[in-house]
């Protein structure tokens, strides 16, 4: 082992003036959002507000029509999703898309292998993650036979197996019951703290966002409405109108 303990460097992942145009439809316009190591940033807004598009731009699934994606002072705008995964920017998917015919353990292992770990390293990390996320009991069953709530957890475990510096989570609590959601909040906060990993959380469920995030970013119709601390945003009249107003 190394003699000097490495102090994890604080890095910033950001989308700068990001815009996305789908065949003439402006899905996103001049949205700037940043996440620092160890920070949980929530991205909220009504359906069609551009949350998932923003996540797609940051993860590299889509490339922005305008604006840039930066990690520190490195420009990632044209980098592929796979290469971003290899440098530690990893996403989950809204419809988790686990590898159904692989076992739960294999789902996690394949991500560790994908990011270049050796086999025994990958196995060890898989064991750790199975334990940390309470998946040990289902480790060797086919992922497709897991209940919906558990599948989201598998998706997160799988993303964590790449040892991400930044984790982009697309609606991780959707389809989970209340106790599962509470567990998930705990898990996300722990992930962020223990691994000094930055988390960008796209979420519908306001209670999840409020209790998990350090900062919030509110989108509507592809534009930023407001960004700031959760307690400030909760009472912002604009947010209440566009977000809470629609739901309650």
């Amino acid at each position: 082992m190394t003699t000097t303990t490495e102090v994890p460097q604080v890095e910033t992942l950001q989308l700068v003036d990001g815009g996305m145009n789908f065949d003439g439809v402006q899905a996103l316009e001049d949205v700037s959002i940043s996440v620092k190591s160890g920070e949980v940033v929530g991205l909220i807004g009504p359906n069609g507000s551009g949350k998932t598009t923003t996540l797609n731009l940051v993860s590299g699934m889509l490339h922005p029509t305008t604006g840039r994606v930066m990690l520190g002072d490195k420009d990632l705008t044209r980098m592929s999703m796979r290469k971003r995964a290899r440098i530690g920017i990893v996403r989950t998917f809204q419809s988790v898309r686990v590898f159904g015919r692989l076992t739960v353990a294999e789902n996690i292992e394949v991500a560790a292998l994908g990011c270049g770990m050796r086999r025994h390293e990958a196995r060890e990390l898989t064991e750790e993650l199975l334990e940390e996320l309470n998946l040990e009991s289902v480790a060797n069953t086919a992922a497709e036979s897991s209940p919906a709530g558990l599948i989201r957890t598998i998706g997160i475990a799988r993303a964590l197996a790449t040892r991400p510096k930044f984790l982009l989570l697309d609606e991780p609590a959707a389809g989970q019951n209340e106790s599962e959601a509470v567990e998930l909040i705990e898990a996300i906060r722990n992930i962020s703290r223990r691994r000094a990993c930055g988390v960008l959380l796209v979420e519908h469920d306001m209670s999840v966002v409020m209790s998990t995030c350090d900062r919030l970013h509110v989108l509507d119709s592809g534009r930023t409405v407001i960004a700031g601390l959760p307690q400030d945003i909760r009472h912002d009249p604009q947010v209440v109108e566009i977000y809470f107003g629609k739901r309650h």
Partner: protein
Amino acid sequence: MILQIIVDMVGLGATYALLTIGIALLFGILGLMNFAYGEIIMIGAFAMYLFKDYPWFVGVLAAVVFAVVVSVLTERLAFRPLRNADPVTLMIASFAVSLALQSVMRMTVLPRTQGVPPQPFLTESITVFGIRVTVLQIVTLVLCGVLLGGLALLMKKTPLGVQLRASAENFQVAKSLGVKGSFVIMSAFAIAGVMAAASGVILVARQGAVSAEMGLTPLLIGIVGAVVGGMSNLKGAALGGLLLGMGTGLLEATLPTDLIAFRDAFLYSAVMVVLVIRPQGLLSGTKVRTS
């Protein structure tokens, strides 16, 4: 008598299972219906012809090398540029590759059918409990067993296997987790090349000849077997091939002489019945890959 038929059936079934696996492997991972697979078999068989004066294992080795190299080359030159293309485009490209390989071989080194004298030791037979088994049958069974078992182990136990299976299920998600898609695909083509070489070796030994067009029949058998068993599932594909081969053997042994000529008509009618009852294949789940 019955045992003799069963032994012959299993031998043919194992041969067919090798064919279907090669087809299903590429289909499962790429959604590629590879019509050029028959030509890879032909290339393997051609290597056997080229090295017919050397000891048998030299020819086998050459067959593996030739088939793997050509299989990987087709990926690099023809299929990689079409990585994100529609499955139909890929299929048509594989037709083109198939025809190109066939024509090039016919124009250059294999203008007409060439005989490959069978290795004397392969035609010898031993009799156990009144059943006559040729060495070729034993070699076929062992080869198929080793290859299918080896492939199962590779898929189940190795890092490459896990990544292959993950990529087969969802290529994009696998890539989003850092899996090197290009490497995985190249490996799949290399493995398919090994399978094709084995099929080529067995075919040459059975037919005693090679020709540029010899890949067509095994290709059709491979596709039909894979469809019967379930295209996106290796176990199912192997079962489909095995059943198809055993069916062929059974019909050959039991049909009256006048009807032998219509063997394939009976066989493929049975295939149609199976597909009407289970259109997704025998062992496939209900999921059909759409992307």
